[in-house]
């Protein structure tokens, strides 16, 4: 009866503790469980061993001398416990073990009787329970072994629950870490920034002193150090040489390769290294290499996280490279499309200034020589960025040039251009434009505006600013749109100031309207040469935005001399 009551208490304790969330509680649970079992069986000593990753070790023990515990640790391959675990069969032993029955078993001179029971969960051995008696009056029998087996079953469930909890926590940590890494390295398309962020993550994730990101040159295939952290100056090529053999192996098998006793340049001590290929669409584009100068090995959890990081890094690097190539093409295209300076117009001063908000912008300006005395002046804001914007600018610019050659009326030109843009660009594409034709013989300016900021005309005689505008919707969104045109004359000293909305946005601060600021600045600087006027207004806008405007800024100034 007493034994049953004691067993019930043990069972109750198992059930109570098996559902705990505290990872350290497994040790406490095993300790208390062992204590209860030893008391129940009136045993002198015992232990609980755990099996993890093909090795087993003593998790808790009571009553065992230190040297016995160490012996068990070091000779597990020949010990009783190993055989019981391997056979998954409990045993009761009496007295010292017979070397013929148990070759290589550890001598047990002080033990009179012992029970060794595998702890099994779904036919998988997760540990071992040992109960020992050193008293001649206490000899275990088969019935007690059967009872101990029942307890062992519950103990096994507790151990397995704890293992599953640990696994779940590790998985959660793994995905949480990967999510944080993904968020940062995919937040930019700037290749240098992406490489820097990856290298920082690698060092943190695998706790290494040195990190090297090596990429294959897309044209030559040569391996180059793209980013290094912890690499001493002047040793870049040494690290490439160091990583190359492992990289070759990683490339062939498309798997992670570890390096033992790696000889780091400028460091005599053997280091541990790890090389992971960066794979995009089954093609190896580079490698992540990490080194620990103290030679410590990389754990499974660490390598698993590094593999996940490498997958994300490969995509982020490839995207950044593609963006860099695209931007390069768009940048070259834009340089061709937007001249830095216009050709001079006799009798007039002309200035211009353009700043894209990103590598390639969507604003453009143009000066078209229609004939000997007439010029077309264009300032436009094209929707889109980078390659899209460059393509739209190209279409628009060349369409205007062709139309300007045969259509003298700005309003009629806008009509044709609108239809062209509507039919030959994406549905969400649109262009705002100020188009004017200047007759240099008499200063006649004929203009039409399509959804664009009004021009500013400063009269020299009475320094005042007129807004130059007509009604007209953005080009490309309504095929049946109509446009109007107006005329005015430029007299000597008059200045026409054209711009895009990026300028007024940049000049805007708090409640102050950007156009008011622009008009005031224009008035103050009206005596400056046309180019200096454009530069100074531009500097004022950039200064407001600490050098980085949110939108493109284009300015054209024209003064009649």
């Amino acid at each position, binding site marked *: 009866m007493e034994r049953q009551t004691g067993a019930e208490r043990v069972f109750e304790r198992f059930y109570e503790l098996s559902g705990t969330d505290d990872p350290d509680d497994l040790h406490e649970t095993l300790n208390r469980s062992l204590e209860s079992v030893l008391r129940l069986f009136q045993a002198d000593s015992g232990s609980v061993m755990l099996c993890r990753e093909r090795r087993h070790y003593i998790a808790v023990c009571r009553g065992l001398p230190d040297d016995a515990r160490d012996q068990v640790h070091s000779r597990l391959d020949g010990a009783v416990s190993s055989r019981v675990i391997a056979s998954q069969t409990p045993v009761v032993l009496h007295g010292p073990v017979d070397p013929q029955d148990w070759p290589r078993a550890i001598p047990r001179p002080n033990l009179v009787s012992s029970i060794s029971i595998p702890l099994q969960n779904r036919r998988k051995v997760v540990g071992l329970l040992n109960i020992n008696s050193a008293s001649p009056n206490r000899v275990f029998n088969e019935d007690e072994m059967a009872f101990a087996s029942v307890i062992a079953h519950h103990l096994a469930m507790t151990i397995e629950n704890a293992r599953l909890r640990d696994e779940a926590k590790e998985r959660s940590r793994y995905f949480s870490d990967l999510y944080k890494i993904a968020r940062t390295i995919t937040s930019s398309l700037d290749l240098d920034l992406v490489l820097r962020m990856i290298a920082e993550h690698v060092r943190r994730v695998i706790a290494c002193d040195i990190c090297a990101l090596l990429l294959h040159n897309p044209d030559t295939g040569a391996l180059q150090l793209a980013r290094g952290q912890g690499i001493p100056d002047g040793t870049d090529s040494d690290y490439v040489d160091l990583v190359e053999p492992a990289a070759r192996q990683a490339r062939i098998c498309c798997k992670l390769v570890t390096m033992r006793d790696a000889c780091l340049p400028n460091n005599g001590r053997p280091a541990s290294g790890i090389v992971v290929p960066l794979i995009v669409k089954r093609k190896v584009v580079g490698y992540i290499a990490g080194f620990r100068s103290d030679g410590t090995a990389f754990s499974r959890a660490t390598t698993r996280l590094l593999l996940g990081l490498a997958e994300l890094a490969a995509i982020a690097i490839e995207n950044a490279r593609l963006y860099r190539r695209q931007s390069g093409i768009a940048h070259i295209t834009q340089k061709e499309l937007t001249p830095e300076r216009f050709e001079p117009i006799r009798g007039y001063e002309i200035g211009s200034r353009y700043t894209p908000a990103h590598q390639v912008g969507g604003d453009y300006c143009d000066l078209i020589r229609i004939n000997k005395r007439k010029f077309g002046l264009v300032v436009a804001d094209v*929707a889109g960025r980078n390659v899209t914007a460059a393509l739209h600018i190209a279409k628009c610019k060349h369409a205007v040039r062709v139309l300007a050659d045969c259509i003298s009326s700005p309003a009629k030109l806008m009509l044709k251009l609108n239809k062209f843009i509507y039919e030959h660009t994406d549905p969400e594409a*649109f262009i*705002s434009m100020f188009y004017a034709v200047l007759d240099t013989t008499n200063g006649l300016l004929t203009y039409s505006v399509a959804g664009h900021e009004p021009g500013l005309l400063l009269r020299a005689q009475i320094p005042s600013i007129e807004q130059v505008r007509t009604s007209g*919707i953005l080009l490309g*969104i309504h095929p049946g749109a109509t446009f109007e045109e107006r005329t005015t004359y430029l007299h000597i000293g008059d200045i026409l100031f054209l711009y895009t909305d990026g300028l007024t946005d940049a000049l*805007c601060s708090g409640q102050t*309207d950007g156009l008011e600021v622009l008009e005031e600045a224009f008035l103050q600087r009206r005596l400056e040469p046309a180019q200096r006027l454009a530069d100074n207004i531009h500097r004022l806008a950039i200064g407001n935005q600490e050098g980085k405007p949110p*939108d493109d800024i284009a300015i054209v100034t024209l003064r009649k001399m």
Partner: protein
Amino acid sequence: MDGETEFKVEERNGIPVVKIVGSLDHYNVPRFRQIITDLSSKGHNEVVVDMSEVDFMDSGGMSGIILGLKWLSEAGGRLLLADLNPRIMRKLEISGFTMMPDKLVLSDSVDQAVAAARSQ
């Protein structure tokens, strides 16, 4: 503008109202376009957009508005923008959007816009 732009969709008197908190620009306009597409596929062709908490709109945001009004007008409806701040209102006026009342309506308040909208 720091932080991500939020989009909230609710219904008033059978009219969908999309509230935007933040900026409407190149980065988040795909989300706006998706919302309009989803509402359109559910049979709504009059959509009110509450712009009271939109503090910045660039050409990307403008393209989202344009696409939205195109889709809705093709389905016989309109896009109704409500409570715009003076800067954004000025952009839309300069762009000529006030010249298309059959496709785009600019209202002073969400209530006004909902009242002007035709429910399905």
